[in-house]
């Protein structure tokens, strides 16, 4: 059996990539994808622990996360389209009408 630390390291790497992508990218769709990456890194950690401790709740949590992520993706994409229609850009730094 693969030791749990492998899963956790992979999860941390994935999460770190997500954070990095979120911080450095300028395209809002990429940011979105980074968020998904972070969520899935967490999911991986969840299922790894669930298997380790033979506890079902970790699996259940993962389903919840996937459902919420799907809903979020739907709403998020809708917002992105709306923003693009009005601002003709996908760069979040330029969506700054409310800034002083």
């Amino acid at each position, binding site marked *: 059996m693969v030791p749990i630390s492998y899963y956790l390291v992979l999860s941390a790497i994935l999460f770190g990539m997500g*954070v990095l992508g979120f911080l450095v990218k300028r395209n809002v769709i990429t940011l979105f994808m980074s968020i998904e990456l972070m969520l899935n890194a967490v999911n991986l950690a969840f299922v790894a622990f669930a298997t380790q401790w033979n506890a079902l709740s970790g699996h259940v949590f993962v389903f919840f996360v996937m459902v919420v992520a799907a809903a979020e993706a739907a709403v998020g994409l809708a917002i992105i389209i709306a923003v693009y229609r009005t601002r003709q850009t996908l760069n*979040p730094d330029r969506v*700054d009408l*409310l*800034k002083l």
Partner: protein
Amino acid sequence: MNLWLIPLLPLAGALLNGLFGRRFSRAGVTAVALGFPGAAFAWSLWVAAQFARLPAAAIPYSETLAAWMQAGAFRVNFAFYLDQLSLVMILVVTGVGFLIHVYSVGYMAHEGGYYRFFSYLNLFLFFMLTLVLADNYLLMFVGWEGVGLASYLLIGFWFQKDSASAAGKKAFIVNRIGDFGFLLGMFLMVKTFGSLSFGEVFPAAANLGVEGSAGVLTAIALLLLLGACGKSAQIPLHVWLPDAMEGPTPVSALIHAATMVTAGVYMVARSSPIYSRAPEALMVVAIVGCLTALFAATIGMAQNDIKRVLAYSTISQLGYMFLACGVAAYSAAIFHLMTHAFFKALLFLGAGSVIHALSGEQDMRHMGGLRRKVPWTFATMTVATLAIAGTPLFSGFFSKDEILWKAYSSPQGSPVFWAVALFTTLLTSFYMFRLWFMTFFGERRTPAGDHTHEDHVHESPPVMLVPLVILAVLSAVGGYVGVPHALGGHNSFAQFLAPVFATGEEVAVHVADAGLERLLTFLSVLAAVLGFAFAWVLYCKRPELPERITAALGGLYYAVANKYFVDEGYQAVFVRPVVEGSTEILWRGIDVGLIDDSVNQAAAGARGISGAVRKMQSGNLRSYAGWVAAGAAAVLAYMFWVGTR
């Protein structure tokens, strides 16, 4: 006897005119304004008639309306007190007051604020009558403050004029200083006697006996004197009275000559049981009076504004009254108070008539030769001038001579007081005849290029002349109630007042030397004649002389003409430090520096912190994410640190 009606009637007039006068016609205002004081005068006469029938044991007659305040054994009532002294005062106040009301109808006929003027004037009468009828010091103080208020309102009657409103404020503030003394005196009285009512304080004071050295009675007397000095414009609080001439002339006549300013004299005379047991305080009263009489008379010689001459003359005459009080000759003081009320009111009203005739001109240098143009005013003013100068057989002669004689002969008197008072008589006669000659004799001296008034000089209407004539008669004969024994009279006025001052050792003439009294009388007449002669030479015979003399006197004349720079001195010593202390310390230091600044600093601090914290809210998505990541990393690091410890 329903004494309360006497003050309440003018109050009703004041309220009616004050509240509804705007809607009344002029005739309506006049009817109210004259009706109520007239009724008060009539009622005073009726009270006087009743009073004459009272048995001696029932005097002083007192009437309690209601309890005002009570704290333990200490109580103060709304009560009125009638004895010979208050009777004289109410007759003078309502009588002269009513005449001046009548005169004002003519004088104020062309002025705005007609109803307001009469409302204030009636209000003044209410407070003045409360003052003289009060049965205790506290109620007297109510009247005392009230007349101050009325005086303030009337001095500032033409409030659009800066000088008038400033003069009103000055009068009010200077009087505050005196009132402070009066209040402290009352506190000391409550502490010493446990009461403020005349009926209890005076017997208690009498029981204390004459103080050999300064004690509590002296302290009370001196504090009361401070109050009296404020109200009666004595040194060092005399500065407000000349400025008070900014008010309409009838006001100057009623308040600043005939009645209100004599309140201090009345108060000292009323407190005679206290003063007579504090010889050192009496001495101070006499010195203050003596100095004021001399000092004001010298200033009066160098003034050119007709009303200011009369104002200084008033201060000087009040000084005489204080001198009389100070030598324990209270009835002489009240006698002079009464005759002074007649002739000084007449002088002011006459001056008002002259000013009226010249359409507002007050500078005597621009008058002259008016005796044919305003014959009635001239005649009545002549009577008043003769009376105040002390011409034999006129009222001022008897009262002033009584004071001079008492200043010499009373146990508290001294030849020094007499000599100063005699010299003041000379000065009085000089400045009064100076005024008389400058106004009525010689040629009209219109200011260059001003010919507008020349043809409009007119005698005043009858409504102004009738009071003048009545007052002239009173000024002429008013003295006969007090002809001294030495001149073949019975001194009935002093005898009438004697019961009031009996407890106060009112002088039973110790030096019963009629020959000496006649000699002194002769000397004072001589002084008056000398004054007249000087005035005649300088202002009638050789009108070019005064300029040469003033030039020769140089600095001295300059000092006198500028009132010895007392105002400037007060300005430098009291007003400037207060103003600058307030500006630099209270305003710029404490208010702006401390209070405003602490508020501003708090606001600036909040703003600075917010400014720093605001930077976090950059609106930059990645910076937020960075903060979140950094925060998460920090939490993680902390957990590691905790876990591995």
